């Protein structure tokens, strides 16, 4: 017995190669081309409006068409479609022809487990998906709030607000999505709208609102049998989120004759009838589709247009389960002229049908965002003492070079004055910090002056230029014990002039996590801006959230600071993922001054002279060697 030869891959491949052979395809391509030329491609716009009312009529129609096709083929001389001959000489017909009407034995009802329902996206989920995928052009079902932004009523320079109604937005979306509608009436007031709606992403920042979506009580899809008994009882601008089995004819339901007008829009009747039902039973038998008792008729071609994997056996499509947006549509029978038979035009007024508007595919899976790193326990950053400054400069001066330092000490003229080279007046610039070793000189900048009265003892801000030179920035106001003050301890902005230019403040910084759109600002000023729109920020005593929906309210225990301050100075900017439009307030110590003139003249600057609090920098903890 020869046991060397086994049924391995090579044996199978050899068999299949032998079976495949080298078939002669000469002339086949030309035949395929000629048959294709005689075959119209299937388009979405289907034939004319008609409703087949009886199986007998459908059968008669099919027979008539069969006779017509056979006669045409015989007249053409081939008795078959071009190039479709078989060895036996029998004609073959393309599978989707009405003639191949015998359902395959395998056309049994599809049985598939229901997958998890596609639920409407929350704004948080939408944000997560938008962070990873482009949804432009995709049909969405969203549960959220649509509002028109309300700018802060806090009396700041821009309290007059944009004079025109800004665009509606999806609250909490990141990036902020404007909501528009091709049918503006759908998006009419009153706002805010809170609920589930259908929309399509027009571009990365715009949603096209399509209508309100009705869901089950639990927010999920309903079953087809739960649709209103009559489509006429549903408004045509009302969508229903439906989970069901879509099925239909996979051969055109023949009609005896076509009217001379080809209407547009969904069709119901001749063509590929389709149904949507609770269960996956097969509604097609031969050329007839019987609407399941637990289902509804939907527009022709719905199966081909919306089934995920259209497959057919004979004339029957294999039912597929999915989630769909369904709505009622009005069909004007009177718009169809020249109906060949009253059977096909049984009505002369508006009829309502259910139509599948879109299939809702499962949303992309987005990896869950890592949990934010818990903020370390916060210790206020105290001003440096001379001892700590000396220690830091002695060990690692580079760690402080270029930093904005807040120092409590005494500025004096050097002793002896002999260290000063030049005139006495020139020696005024050679001020040193008393007790610093080696002596650290403090020099004014182009825009600042040293304290007019020396010696000066107090807290001041300065930038370390090199290991022995500080550039003086200004005197800093602190609490009596030298620690930072709270935001509520800041004076009113209009009373703050003429005092020390800086304040050391410990507070919670917060703000919008998205830029609230507003009317373009005429001639916007350079530097910090406080227009009340954009990315407004605040600094407060507590972690109160200043953002509610699209409204920014400066905390009662805080002050408004310049736009974008949160993103610029929060220790680790964290944006809320709960769809509320705000950021996660963070606690830090800041050097604050006033800003004047951010608002240009005009409607945006009407109050309080344009003075605002301005965060100059965040004061980070000093190096270990310098810790007070």
């Amino acid at each position: 017995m020869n046991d060397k030869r086994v049924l391995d891959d090579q044996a199978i491949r050899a068999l299949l190669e032998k079976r495949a052979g080298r078939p002669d395809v000469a002339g086949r391509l030309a035949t395929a081309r000629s048959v294709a030329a005689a075959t119209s491609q299937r388009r979405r716009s289907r034939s004319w409006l008609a409703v087949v009312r009886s199986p007998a009529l459908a059968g008669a129609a099919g027979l008539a068409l069969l006779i017509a096709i056979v006669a045409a083929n015989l007249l053409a001389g081939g008795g078959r479609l071009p190039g479709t001959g078989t060895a036996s000489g029998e004609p073959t017909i393309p599978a989707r022809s009405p003639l191949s009407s015998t359902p395959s034995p395998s056309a049994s009802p599809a049985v598939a487990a229901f997958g998890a329902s596609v639920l409407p996206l929350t704004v948080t989920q939408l944000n997560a998906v938008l962070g990873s995928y482009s949804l432009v052009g995709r049909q969405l079902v969203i549960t959220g709030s649509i509002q028109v932004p309300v700018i802060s009523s806090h009396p700041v320079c821009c309290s007059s607000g944009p004079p025109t109604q800004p665009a509606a937005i999806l609250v909490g979306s990141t990036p902020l999505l404007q909501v528009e509608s091709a049918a503006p009436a759908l998006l009419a007031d009153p706002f805010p709208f809170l609920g589930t709606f259908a929309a399509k992403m027009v571009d990365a920042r715009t949603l096209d609102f399509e209508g309100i979506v009705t869901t089950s009580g639990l927010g999920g899809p309903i079953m087809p049998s739960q649709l209103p008994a009559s489509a006429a009882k549903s408004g045509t601008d009302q969508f229903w989120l439906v989970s069901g089995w879509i099925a239909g004819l996979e051969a055109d339901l023949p009609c005896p004759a076509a009217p001379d007008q080809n209407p547009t829009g969904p069709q119901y009747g001749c063509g590929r009838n389709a149904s949507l039902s609770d269960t996956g039973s097969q509604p097609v038998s031969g050329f007839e589709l019987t609407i399941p008792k637990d289902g509804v008729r939907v527009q022709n071609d719905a199966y081909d247009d919306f089934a995920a994997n259209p497959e057919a056996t004979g004339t029957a499509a294999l039912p597929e389960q999915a989630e769909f947006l369904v709505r009622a549509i009005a069909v004007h029978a009177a718009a169809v002229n020249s109906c060949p038979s009253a059977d096909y035009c049984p009505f002369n007024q508006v009829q309502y049908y259910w139509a599948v508007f879109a299939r809702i595919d499962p949303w992309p899976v987005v990896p869950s965002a890592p949990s934010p790193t818990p903020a370390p326990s916060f210790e206020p950053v105290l001003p440096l003492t001379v001892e700590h400054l000396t220690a830091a400069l002695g060990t690692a001066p580079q760690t402080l070079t270029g930093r904005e330092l807040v120092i409590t000490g005494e500025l004096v003229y050097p002793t002896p004055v002999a260290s000063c080279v030049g005139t006495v007046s020139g020696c005024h610039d050679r001020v040193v910090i008393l007790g610093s070793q080696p002596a650290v000189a403090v020099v004014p900048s182009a825009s600042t002056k040293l304290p007019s009265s020396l010696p000066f003892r107090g807290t001041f801000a300065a930038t370390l230029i090199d290991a022995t030179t500080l550039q003086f920035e200004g005197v800093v106001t602190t609490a009596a014990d030298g620690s930072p003050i709270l935001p509520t301890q800041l004076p009113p902005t209009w009373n703050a002039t003429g005092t020390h230019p800086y304040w050391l403040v410990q507070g919670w910084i917060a703000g919008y996590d998205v830029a609230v759109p507003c009317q373009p600002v005429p001639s916007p000023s350079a530097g910090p801006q406080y227009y009340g729109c954009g990315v407004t920020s605040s600094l407060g005593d507590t972690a109160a959230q200043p953002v509610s929906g699209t409204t920014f309210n400066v905390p009662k225990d805080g002050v408004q600071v310049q736009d974008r301050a949160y993103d610029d100075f929060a220790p680790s900017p964290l944006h809320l993922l709960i769809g509320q439009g705000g950021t996660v307030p963070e606690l830090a110590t800041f050097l604050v001054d006033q800003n004047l003139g951010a608002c240009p003249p005009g409607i945006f600057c009407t109050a309080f002279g344009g003075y605002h609090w301005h965060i100059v920098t965040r004061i980070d903890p000093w190096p270990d060697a310098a810790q007070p």
Partner: protein
Amino acid sequence: MTELDLVGRARQGDLDAFTALAGARLLAMTRTATAILGDEPEAHDAVQEALISIWRELPTLREPERFDAWAGRILVNACRHALKRRIRVRVREIRLSPEPADGPGFGDDGRLARPAAVGFATVAARAESLGDDDALNRAFERLDAEQRTLLVLHHLEERPLTEIAALLGIPIGTAKSRLFTARRALEIALERESR
């Protein structure tokens, strides 16, 4: 012009683009159909049927970049239809000799050693003893449409499992297990044909 361009133009009704697409696949499609059906004229019809379906349904193709898998799926469906239409021809089974009493799966030491390999080596040897590969061919004819398709896609077209799964619309794991089942079915069929 890329294939995607051709698909796009063919979707718009460009017959030349469709002809180019069809021409690039005609021989491979015919070989696949012939391997599955085992009958060249029948394969020509299946290919013709598939090409017309492709032409007709192109405007409804949702993902043009997946044209190849989509077209392959249509061809496979056409072959399935052809098989279902076919009147089954019963194969007269010929038993050459009785099964050895000790069974083919036992080695000289009396233990069950390489049961499958020993068994099929014996079967293959018997098939060869018929003088040609008719037994293997008849065994293949015993397989159903899906099993034939899987074996052809894997062993003849040498498509990776991911493509096979996509083409058949089934998960990769399912494709893998069904491919195994198909191969096992061929082995069993070969064993029967060789008796």
